[in-house]
């Protein structure tokens, strides 16, 4: 019994007033990480659904409509879970970060509010139309409402990221006599240079998740030899978009992110790379454990001079290490370091896998290679991990600041909300989120098991020809069909 209590010591210690901020951070971080598992899937999938709907509109074949319908059935519950878990986040600004909201509301309130009226209204209203009116109002309305859902959810991502970008790189604000901040130029908030690279990186990550999901489920159908035509379509679309997006994550968007870090947030870069000492011609660490006692990376494997080049475009540039900054401004170094390395490592693996898959698709081997299909199926969950650790780098790496260089996280929390209340709400949210996860998994398994509804009274030959037509490397087969006519 005593041993159990000893084990609980670190948790129980969190009821001290001084540590309540940590609980607020846990609650917000936990809510955010859980929430973002869903939007990354839906924002990626909605693009692919628009692709399928466009194929349906242009080619008019029921096959594409059924393919889109299948993905909508995966998309819709994820969208709803994303929406309902996002509401506590919006209100979390007020409930858990009251002082931060008071001080910065005059600036970021703008884009939080705009997300509501411009983006969230559009996606919810048109999702209702798409889901429940899609068949009644004809092809064009169907396509248009799908497109509006896409536009709305991508705009939503933009407005939310302007809020985050301002917290990373505060621009265009001034301090009022009462200590609160006021906005100077509204358009500078929307066009914060930080938004640009962050937006293309985050949305690229969403497309990675969506296309890996599509390729993976397609691979499942090919492996089980069910719904083979749908399987081919899904794998093809998934691999094409998966290749494009995973390359995009490395270059140009990932490259731009690290260059921006080098310029504006050198501490985060040093922590992420595990660079303890300022170096000229700094090397890039692949593997190794940061050791805060000895201030070095244990058993490192490094590429000399590459970090300098990636950060400043010169092999001899000087990169500042952690020691150049006061210790009180360091983020959690091991957490930032590992998150960053997992993100980069998995991202590289994604690009390699998709490159191989695309090559096999082009040569016409992919649908027969069970090993590759297994790989596509098994890699499906990993983009979720990659996007999550990416956000951990962004947010944990920004600590101890809530608004970079302007306001400390410890100053922003609601100081009258005590630890007991935060424990209570964390436990409540955790329980609800557990329920939601179980449900979503049940729903997806059921949909995948039942599969898309196959074409019933269609001209199978024409269908075969069309499927062949969209698959690269299979063109000759299409010609054969044409000659037979």
């Amino acid at each position, binding site marked *: 019994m005593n041993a159990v209590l000893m084990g609980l010591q670190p948790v129980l210690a969190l009821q001290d007033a001084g540590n309540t901020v940590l609980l607020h951070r846990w609650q917000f971080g936990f809510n955010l990480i859980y929430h973002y598992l869903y939007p990354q899937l839906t924002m990626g999938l909605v693009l692919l659904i628009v692709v399928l709907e466009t194929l349906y509109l242009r080619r008019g074949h029921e096959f594409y409509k059924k393919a889109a319908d299948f993905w909508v059935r995966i998309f819709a519950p994820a969208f709803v879970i994303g929406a309902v878990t996002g509401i506590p986040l919006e209100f979390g600004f007020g409930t858990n970060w009251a002082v931060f909201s008071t001080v910065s509301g005059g600036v970021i309130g703008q884009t939080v509010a705009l997300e509501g009226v411009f983006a969230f209204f559009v996606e*919810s209203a048109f999702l209702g139309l798409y889901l429940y009116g899609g068949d009644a109002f004809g092809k064009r309305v169907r396509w248009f409402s799908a497109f509006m859902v896409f536009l709305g959810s991508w705009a939503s991502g933009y407005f939310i990221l302007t809020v985050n970008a301002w917290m990373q790189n505060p621009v265009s604000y001034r301090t009022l006599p009462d200590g609160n901040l006021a906005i100077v130029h509204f358009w500078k908030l929307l066009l914060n240079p930080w938004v640009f690279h962050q937006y293309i990186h985050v949305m690229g990550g969403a497309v990675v998740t969506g296309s890996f999901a599509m390729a993976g489920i397609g691979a499942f159908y090919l492996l089980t030899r069910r719904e083979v035509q749908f399987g081919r379509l899904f794998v093809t679309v998934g691999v094409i978009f998966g290749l494009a997006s995973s390359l995009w994550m490395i270059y140009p968007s990932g490259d731009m992110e690290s260059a921006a870090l080098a310029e504006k947030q050198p501490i985060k870069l040093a922590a992420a790379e595990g660079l303890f000492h300022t170096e000229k011609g700094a090397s890039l660490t692949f593997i190794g454990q940061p050791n805060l006692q000895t201030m070095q990376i244990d058993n490192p494997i490094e590429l000399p001079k590459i970090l300098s080049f990636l950060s400043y475009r010169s092999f001899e540039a000087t990169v500042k290490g952690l020691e150049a900054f006061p210790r009180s401004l360091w983020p959690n170094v091991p957490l930032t370091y590992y998150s960053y390395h997992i993100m980069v490592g998995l991202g590289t693996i994604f690009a390699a896998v998709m490159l191989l898959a695309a090559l096999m698709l082009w040569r016409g081997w992919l649908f027969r290679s069970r090993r590759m299909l297994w790989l596509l199926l098994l890699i499906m969950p990993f983009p979720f991990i990659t996007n999550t650790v990416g956000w951990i780098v962004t947010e944990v790496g920004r600590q101890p600041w809530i608004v970079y260089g302007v306001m400390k996280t410890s100053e922003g929390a609601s100081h009258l909300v005590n630890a007991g209340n935060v424990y209570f709400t964390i436990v409540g949210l955790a329980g609800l989120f557990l329920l939601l996860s179980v449900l979503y998994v049940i729903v997806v398994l059921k949909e995948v098991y039942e599969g898309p509804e196959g074409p019933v009274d269609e001209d199978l030959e024409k269908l075969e020809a069309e499927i062949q037509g969209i698959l690269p490397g299979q063109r000759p087969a299409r010609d054969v069909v044409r000659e037979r006519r």
Partner: protein
Amino acid sequence: MQTVWFIFIAFILTMYVLLDGFDLGAGAIYPFVTKDDRERRAVQRAILPLWDGNETWLVAAGGGLFLSFPLLYSVSLSGFYLAVFVVLWLLILRGIGLEMRGLLDNDLWRSFWDGVFFIGSLPLPFFFGVALANVMRGVPIGQDGSYFFQALWTDPLHPLSKNPGILDWYTVMIGLLALCAVILHGTTYLTMKTTGGLRNSSRIFAGAFWVATVGLTALATPLTFYLLPQRLSHFESAPWGFVFPAVAIGGILTVGYALMKGRDGLSFGGSCAYIVGMMSSTAFAIYPKVLPAVDPSRSLTIYNASAPHHSLVVGLIAWGLGLLLACAYFAIIYRMFRGRVEV
């Protein structure tokens, strides 16, 4: 400019109650008005395409408050911390209940989600009413800074104590009034949107809740002014404000008349007018305060809680445009889903 934003926020909140009110009300009553799965599905069909958009008005209200009155946003959300989280959990449960129900074709699954949807819907209007009553009564804003924290209840029998909790007899009464009014709203909506036996039973329930709403309104209004005579002062200085309660009274009488005559559209319209009247009366009564305090000198007003002038102007332009667009596509979507749902 602050006044414009005050009206704006009041408008958004009223829209939220009007729109999400009918699906909340329908959710809170629907196990009782329906007798089999077919009817339950009809109720669901009447609200499924619309509820998500309706709830967005709440998100918009949150964003709008954050933009225009950041101090109010943070003070009230952290002060009502516990109640806010209960509301958020219920919102999550309700949305999930609605959307999950149709995904598996299994009786047990459907009954479970029917229950979740009902349990998620029923307490929400009550808590919204409680929140409104707390604002009317005043909250214990402290002297250092301007934050406060309210427990769920401290002394339920004395609403005017120095450190009131969220629940006491006065706020509970207003909560019940809000619940009855929202159920009335939902049942008149169902009367308008459905056919056959479902329409008839919705009408009967609408009648019952009409009586309850009238009774509670007649009880709560004098009690409010007995308990909080200071809330009458704005009406005394600007008597044209009596228009708002008049709209409410006209609305509720119209509902009664229309229910008797069987004019479904008119009864729903009357219920809308009642809600608009009650919401605007409340807003008019507290203006220019946005969050009255127990100690009146510490109240948040539209002046000391608002964002800087420039933020308000810029926000009004961008947001006004967005809101016009929102109203336009809401009009389109509602038009597309007009007409009755066949059982």
